[in-house]
């Protein structure tokens, strides 16, 4: 006859295995570096060549999304854990969230023409993207819990900075994206990557 203690020990073993596999929902560091460069270059363009920045964000955003998918796939193969559902959720959150943020800002500008003046529309986009960042912290990487509100505050405050405010904001956000990747948040993903 089976016994309770044996089953208890087996369940404890399974629980430990599951705990070992639980790593923070942070993808490869290369994705964070990619977007840090994108943010820094794009925000600097707002200060130095505003018309070009719109094209940069649009084309760079699409290419960045494709590159992120590929980097995430490569990382999954190297770590030995393939979770398509998680990847889809990430794409839906970041891709869908940012598209909705931009569309919402454009819609607000369309119904309220004064908002189109100056950098208001850009500020609105940044504040809404800050919200997407914050929700990214709720669902994926805790780092975005503070980076989101920081971006939202920066999106408002940049309106009071006469020169190079966007470049400074881009630099702060870029640093906020890459610095946490230098300090692993625990878990076993890195260990597996080395041993796989």
């Amino acid at each position, binding site marked *: *006859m*089976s*016994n*309770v*203690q*044996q*089953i208890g*020990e*087996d*369940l404890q*073993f*399974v629980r*430990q*295995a*599951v705990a*070992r*596999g639980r790593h923070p929902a942070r993808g490869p560091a290369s994705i964070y570096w990619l977007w840090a460069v994108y943010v820094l270059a794009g925000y600097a363009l707002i200060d130095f060549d505003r018309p070009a920045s719109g094209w940069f964000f649009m084309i760079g955003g699409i290419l960045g999304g494709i590159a992120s998918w590929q980097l995430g796939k490569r990382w999954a*193969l*190297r*770590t*030995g*854990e*393939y*979770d*398509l*559902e*998680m990847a889809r959720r990430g794409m839906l959150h970041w891709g869908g969230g940012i598209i909705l943020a931009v569309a919402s800002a454009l819609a607000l500008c369309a119904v309220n023409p004064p908002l189109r003046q100056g950098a208001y529309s850009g500020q609105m986009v940044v504040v809404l993207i800050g919200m997407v960042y914050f929700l990214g912290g709720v669902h994926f990487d805790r780092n975005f819990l503070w980076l989101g509100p920081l971006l939202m505050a920066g999106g408002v405050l940049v309106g009071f900075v006469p020169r190079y405010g966007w470049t400074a904001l881009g630099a702060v956000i870029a640093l906020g994206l890459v610095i946490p990747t230098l300090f692993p948040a625990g878990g*076993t993903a890195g*260990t*597996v990557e080395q*041993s*796989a």
Partner: protein
Amino acid sequence: MGRTEIESPSGPPAGLDQLDPLLQHRSRLGALVLLADVDALSFTRLRLLLDETDGNLGAQLRKLEDAGYVKVRKEFIDRKPTTWYSLSAHGQKSLKAHLKAVESLIKSAKV
């Protein structure tokens, strides 16, 4: 070490006869539980998470494969052979039934 046997004056406790014999091994149970949460795991990843030796894990996974509980796919990544395991529909159903039986068993043991 003493063990608490499940005793019942009115026959076997609830859930005992529904336990899946194949999943009464902790490595096989652990592998299926881990696979239930993702699309696929490599052999290396499973070995690390289950803290098993190559030989033992390979033997346990072979049993799961023979029973149709897991699907196996082999491919080369960076010129290294990698074996991927994923849970089959049959494996998912069996795991669910086994865990339900374990739950019933634990409940009956508490009474």
